[in-house]
């Protein structure tokens, strides 16, 4: 536990940006980068380009090592940040271009194309990196940091540059919001309205490249893609509207960036990239479980309720059919607990060991029975299903009929001269 040598004050100072100036710059820069990644990642997710971004970020490695090799052989310092970023951007874009070439000129599918570009470009990068390490005397050692990232080694100007790129990229995405939205949701429609889809796609790709390249130093090229993928995937659980998705994703991205950079600044041996991704991953996990509309928990509860509702309907319907003395009516099958619950709820009662409907239960049963008949008749007369085959599909639909649908069914059936009476016992 000697990893925790700091006091509460230091934690507070760092988190409220009152720490050292360098630390502040890195934290702020990473936060802005996280926001931008969240915004642009939303479009990448909707456009199903998440893994293209992965190939892109792996493909930056040969660019970094290549830029280093070229600039040192020309006599410049190989550590110039803008130069390395330029190299990274060039091979990153080249990688995406290769994916397109493979897709258009061979029978290979997208997954294979992405995997090929990712592994081969990265392999070339490793080869160039080992060339750097053998040819130059120590100067190239720091290049390894671009793989896993090292926020602590960032200078203030690096961090400021990262923050500015984050702001610019977010603004660019917001300006293009409408165009991006159309292309993401309906490419064909976008084309038909004369939008230059390839141009919009290229701008989107350009922004992804910008984020990837500027995050290399802080997060590293393997994990930077997580900042683009995870926040929007987590935000997707909370909303179905695009602008909300972008907003929530930006917040999650910014939060992960902020938390990751702060924790990494506060504690030794906590690499910023990994912490950022772990924070984002935890938010994703919580969102998947707890989000009110699309979360697993909410979904399970909804399903369970529907299941109970259907089970209740079945019991009431069978009891009602027994009252009607319909031929194949049978005693309802349900667990004792469930029957008990329904008795407590006042729908059914137990007399002389047989189940019977209460008045409120009878009203319900009548309604369900009538829905069943409505739907059955509709299937027979409109969908041409033989009367002997109807029941199977009726059992599932009768529970989800809304009042509007019932009115429509009545209307449709009356046009064919079929009426279903109110289901009173004969």
């Amino acid at each position, binding site marked *: 536990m000697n990893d925790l040598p700091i006091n509460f004050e230091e934690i507070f100072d760092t988190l409220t940006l009152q720490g050292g100036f360098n630390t502040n710059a890195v934290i702020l820069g990473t936060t802005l980068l996280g926001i931008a990644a969240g915004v642009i990642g939303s479009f990448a997710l909707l456009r199903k380009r998440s893994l293209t971004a*992965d190939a892109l970020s792996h493909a930056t490695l040969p660019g970094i090592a290549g830029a280093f090799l070229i600039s040192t052989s020309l006599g410049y310092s190989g550590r110039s940040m803008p130069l390395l970023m330029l190299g990274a951007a060039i091979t990153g874009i080249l990688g995406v271009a290769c994916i397109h070439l493979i897709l258009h000129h061979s029978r290979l599918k997208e997954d294979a194309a*992405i*995997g090929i570009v990712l*592994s081969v470009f990265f392999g070339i990068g490793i080869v160039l990196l080992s060339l750097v390490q053998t040819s130059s005397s120590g100067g190239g050692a720091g290049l390894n940091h671009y793989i896993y990232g090292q926020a602590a080694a960032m200078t203030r100007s690096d961090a400021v540059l990262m923050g500015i790129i984050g702001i610019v990229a977010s603004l660019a995405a917001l300006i293009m919001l409408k165009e991006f939205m159309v292309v993401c949701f309906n490419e064909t429609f976008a084309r038909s309205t004369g939008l230059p889809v390839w141009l919009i796609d290229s701008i989107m790709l350009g922004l992804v490249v910008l984020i990837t390249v500027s995050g290399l130093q802080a997060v590293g090229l393997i994990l930077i893609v997580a900042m683009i993928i995870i926040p929007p995937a987590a935000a997707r659980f909370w909303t179905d509207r695009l602008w909300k998705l972008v907003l929530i994703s930006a917040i999650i991205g910014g939060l992960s960036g902020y938390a990751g950079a702060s924790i990494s600044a506060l504690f030794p041996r906590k690499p910023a990239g*990994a912490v950022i991704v772990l924070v984002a*991953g935890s938010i994703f996990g919580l969102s*998947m479980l707890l989000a009110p509309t699309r979360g697993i928990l909410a979904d399970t509860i909804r399903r369970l309720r529907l299941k109970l509702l259907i089970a209740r309907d079945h019991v009431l319907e069978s009891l009602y059919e027994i009252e009607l003395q319909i031929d194949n009516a049978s005693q309802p099958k349900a667990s004792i607990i469930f029957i008990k619950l329904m008795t407590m709820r006042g729908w059914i009662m137990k007399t002389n060991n047989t189940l019977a409907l209460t008045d409120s239960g009878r009203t319900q049963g009548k309604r369900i029975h009538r829905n069943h008949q409505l739907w059955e008749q509709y299937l027979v007369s409109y969908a041409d299903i033989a009367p002997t085959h109807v029941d199977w599909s009726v059992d599932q639909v009768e529970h989800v009929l809304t009042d509007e649908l019932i009115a429509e069914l009545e209307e449709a059936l009356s046009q064919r001269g079929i009426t279903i009476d109110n289901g009173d016992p004969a």
Partner: protein
Amino acid sequence: MIPELIQTFLTLDLFPLLGAIFASLSCGLLGNFLVLRKQSLMGDAISHAVLPGLVLAFLITQDRSPIHMFIGAAVSALVTVILVEVIKRLGKVEPGAAMGVVFSVLFALGVFLLENANARGVDLDANCVLHGNLQILFWTTSPTEWSHFLSENIRSEVPRQIWTLLATTIAVIIFITVFFKELRIASFDAGIATVQGINAGVMHMALMTFVAIAAVASFEAVGSILVIAMLICPAATARLLTDRLITQILVSAIIALLTAIGGYALASWMGVNAAGMMASTAGAILVVVMIGSPSHGVIAKARNQRKLGNLVALEDILGALYRLAETEEHTTREQLIATLGSSKRTHKAIDRALTHKLIKVVNTQLQLTQTGLAQGAGIIRKHRQWEGYLVEQVGISPDHVHETAEQLEHLIDPDLPNQHTDPHGKPIPPKNS
């Protein structure tokens, strides 16, 4: 006595090379099914995600016992597969994003644990994870006599990684051979597999388990990047060379071998990282095949397209001249080119028709020769039969069928023997006229 040169090879290169070959073979063979199922990136995800398993196994057991490492990595590989499925199904997340979330978080967890574990030793260096550590596999007590190969202690001198990789390769070959039929059906059509009583889900999990085993076994020696390259590149390359699965698997094995040996040789020669060079070699082979494959290559496709284009141009000329001959009209070369659209292809096609004596020049007018007339009749016959078919059977109105018939006439002979006139009342030339 073993010559010095060979002895150097045995000392420094034999085991790394064997390691590379076994890793490439086991991953390359399994890759065929991943590529078929469009799940190439599952290999990518698994090989990233085994990292936390390795580190956790080390943290829990505090030793580098290969068994523990192996179990840790295999468990986290399976966790990856299951998590991806869970997120895809329960969370309804797009498959690509689901995979991206899982493997990046697990990899981040691995990096995080690694930094904290103070385990930055020989086996668990963050960079070794990516590009392996082949060069440590040298033969410490290199043999000086050939008879040494037959001696008792050779078994213990071969590094553990080589034995693991050899066992994995054999297991993979047995798995694919025994379950070939099941794997094939489940990969092509899960529905049909189910109908035939094969559980596609079980086959999927079995395949993923083997991918995980191959990834873990290869991981230590060649690193995750070569695992990904080998899971995808040889199979993808082979897929561009053949349409038969068995042939594809055999070809992919050969490519994997070539990649391992070629990449290793190049790396030793240039003094660069071997795993990186092998991945690059795999890419280079793929590019060559993508361009040059006789059946699916870019060149072959372009050549076929040109051939078809030339045929169409020639047939259009013969057809046009036949139509003119029907009404006893004539045309000069210039007029014909003007009606058919002036292109280099048309010019060339006329020249070709002249040299093959399909057409001739009479007083600056172009005319069909006897053979040309027969061929022209054949084309017009197909054209007019198609028009008839389109009107009568498909129900397209007569003034809309020409364009479609114009394309179909070059490709398929409808062969409707009982038709004698087309919808426009023009005679259909008899067969073999």
